[in-house]
């Protein structure tokens, strides 16, 4: 089966994609409404917490970090697959990414924005958050450059601004198409401004390619470093269960994993809602699923490495934490993580499920549940069974404020994402055209020469 139909007319591509800006299925509005409702719950929780104090989250001493940090890591992780699809696969000339990279890239940006909110929500004095940025001030005060949390703030800020830039630059030719096809209203003005006067001249295309490639190259090390730095928050601390050397690669693998699972979920939703069946085809889904499966196995392996290195290190405290995870108050969540993260993805190994939409939707959601649990299981158990015995018998359960905020963050993300897909073309028109063109060229060549070489990877 082909990734994409080679004889789609260019005008039809424009028409189909531009239609997504106009008339989605009714489900779109249902999703937007639900997202808005969920988000308003989170807003309510935050207003309450801001006014009363952090105590309403049920965090306590020693459990000073909770779901906020866990969910922060989750959203940071989710942002990685966008870069994987758009930058890494771009450099590797895997052209099947073309119809789906735009929404993956948008996912990157919006999940980073969601993650940033969690840092804010977590802070005790949210109104002073700018203290942690190196801004010029009369007192000559700098933030503490030794703190991984500061590296975090800077890495996320850099990554967020770069991925917004990458998303925008990659969209310029499409914005010009929108500008030329929409004749009135605020959208016309918006596209006119954002298209930066794109006319598609040779010189513009050349500059565009160079710029796009440069940002892609810039973004890849950033993506790896961001999650390594998030891992450093834990790995550079002294606490048992956190002080693990393999955390940075483990976090990056986990990030790509949850991101790919989220891409599958959003792929299925977008495909249906915006009627993109012809572009987001099942063979492309299949490739994404296989990629996800591979990353799931890498994650499982790194997980095993972590357990083994803790077990055989004979560091009593770390080992105790590991045993506590498996048998203590968090046992259900921990085994849930193992089940959802390592057992459930085995479904993806079966060919018949690789294109089965209902199965994939459920599986991808379960994978992300597992990855969320993983983050929680990294953060929380260390507090309930750390070095100091006096802290051991304090159990803590997040209050409804924390849960509400976590729940609402999904609403906020979905809201941003859905609005984006309605305002901007979520399938890259110019790159789908390229793909169709190159593929048809390749198959024509194949017909002419009769050669047996594969059309895969043609560019």
């Amino acid at each position, binding site marked *: 089966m082909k990734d994409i139909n080679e004889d789609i007319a260019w005008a039809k591509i424009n028409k189909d994609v531009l239609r997504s800006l106009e008339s989605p299925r009714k489900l779109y509005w249902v999703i937007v409404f639900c997202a808005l409702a969920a988000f308003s719950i989170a807003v309510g929780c935050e207003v309450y917490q801001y006014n*009363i*104090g*952090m*105590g309403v989250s*049920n*965090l*306590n*001493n*020693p*459990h*000073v*970090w909770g779901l906020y940090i866990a969910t922060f890591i989750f959203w940071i992780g989710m942002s990685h697959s966008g870069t994987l699809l758009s930058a890494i696969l771009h450099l590797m000339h895997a052209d099947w990414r073309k119809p789906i990279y735009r929404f993956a890239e948008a996912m990157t940006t919006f999940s980073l924005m969601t993650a940033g909110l969690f840092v804010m929500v*977590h*802070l*005790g*004095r*949210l109104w*002073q*958050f700018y*203290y*942690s940025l190196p801004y*010029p*001030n*009369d*007192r*000559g*005060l*700098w*933030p*503490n*450059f*030794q*703190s*991984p*949390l*500061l590296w*975090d*703030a800077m890495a996320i800020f850099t990554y967020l601004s770069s991925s917004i830039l990458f998303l925008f630059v990659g969209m310029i030719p499409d914005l010009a198409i929108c500008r030329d096809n929409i004749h009135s209203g605020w959208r016309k003005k918006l596209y006119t401004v954002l298209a930066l006067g794109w006319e598609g001249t040779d010189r513009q295309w050349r500059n565009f390619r160079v710029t796009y490639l440069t940002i892609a190259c810039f973004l890849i090390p950033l993506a790896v470093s961001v999650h390594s730095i998030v891992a450093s*928050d834990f790995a*550079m*601390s*002294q*606490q048992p269960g956190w002080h693990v050397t393999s955390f940075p690669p483990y976090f990056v693998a986990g990030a790509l994993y949850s991101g790919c699972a989220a891409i599958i979920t959003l792929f299925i939703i977008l495909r249906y809602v915006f009627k993109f069946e012809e572009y987001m085809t099942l063979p492309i889904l299949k490739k994404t699923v296989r990629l996800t499966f591979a990353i799931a196995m890498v994650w499982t392996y790194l997980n095993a490495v972590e357990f083994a290195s803790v077990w055989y290190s004979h560091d009593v405290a770390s080992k105790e934490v590991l045993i506590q995870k498996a048998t203590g108050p968090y046992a259900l969540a921990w085994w849930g993580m193992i089940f959802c993260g390592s057992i459930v993805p085995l479904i993806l190994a079966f060919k018949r499920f690789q294109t089965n939409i209902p199965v994939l939707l459920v599986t991808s959601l379960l994978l992300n549940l597992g990855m969320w649990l993983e983050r929680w299981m990294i953060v929380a158990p260390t*507090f309930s069974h*750390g*070095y*100091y*015995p*006096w*802290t051991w018998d*304090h159990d*803590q359960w997040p209050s409804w404020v924390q849960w509400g905020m976590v729940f609402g963050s999904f609403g906020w993300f979905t809201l941003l994402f859905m609005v984006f897909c309605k305002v901007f073309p979520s399938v890259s028109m110019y790159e789908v055209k390229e793909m169709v063109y190159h593929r048809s060229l390749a198959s024509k060549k194949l017909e002419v020469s009769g050669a047996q070489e594969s059309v895969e990877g043609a560019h």
Partner: protein
Amino acid sequence: MSVSNLLENWAEFRHTHPVNDVPHDPYKWAMSIDLDACTGCNACSVACYAENNIPVVGRDKFQHGQVMHWMRIERYWPEDGRDFPDQGATFLPMMCQQCEAAPCETVCPVGATNHTADGLNSQAYNRCVGSRYCSANCPFKVRYFNWYDYPTTENVWPAEMTQQLNPDITLRSKGVMEKCTFCVQRIRAGERAVKNEGRILRDGEVQTACQQVCPSGAITFGNLVDPESKVHQKWKAQRVELNADEQEKDKEEGGTDLRGYRILEELRPYPSVMYMERVRESAI
């Protein structure tokens, strides 16, 4: 504000590693606590509340683990096969250990917690943004976060009790971290008082609140640099070295009969508090 501030001064922002550091001059505040003398009466904890304007959070918040006792008496029940009335609890007064290589200091994103030249681990409330990373990385979990806006919370200090508050200490607002300061307000007041006389503090001129009230005199506080001070003599007698993560006495074959040790010394935070109790084989 200039870039030179970053290039030149920030390296001095922190002390070098304490092992290689110059001796503290003229003070290095330290403590020794005799656990064999401690009766677990909690007077130190009460005195600390009174001296440092610590909010009394009440029953509910206590149950949520949001209590603010800078000085806490930990109670441990040895598993020696006996049941309650016969089973003897052991007590451990625990407060900020004022570590020389404090794990909390390096991780604070805004540098709100720093080391002072006289060996205290300081906390700048105004600078704190409440990321709580310091507490997360504290091996002793002795840092307490203001989960609520206690100065305005009802019943924390009932109206008639506000006259009791210590004017030398600020009330902390919500969202900042706080912890034992070794009664830094008393130290500073003492330093100012003797400055006019052109000398430095003598042993016993500054007492911490917990030390002052301890009925069995289990707590000794003083200047470790001063060879005449009680705390110096105790540390010396117990052969506990501040800047060593592996004490010479522990290398002796068969061990020593000395009682002094520091908690979680093997993590190398170089705590400034020495505890004295014979470590019994049965307890390990």
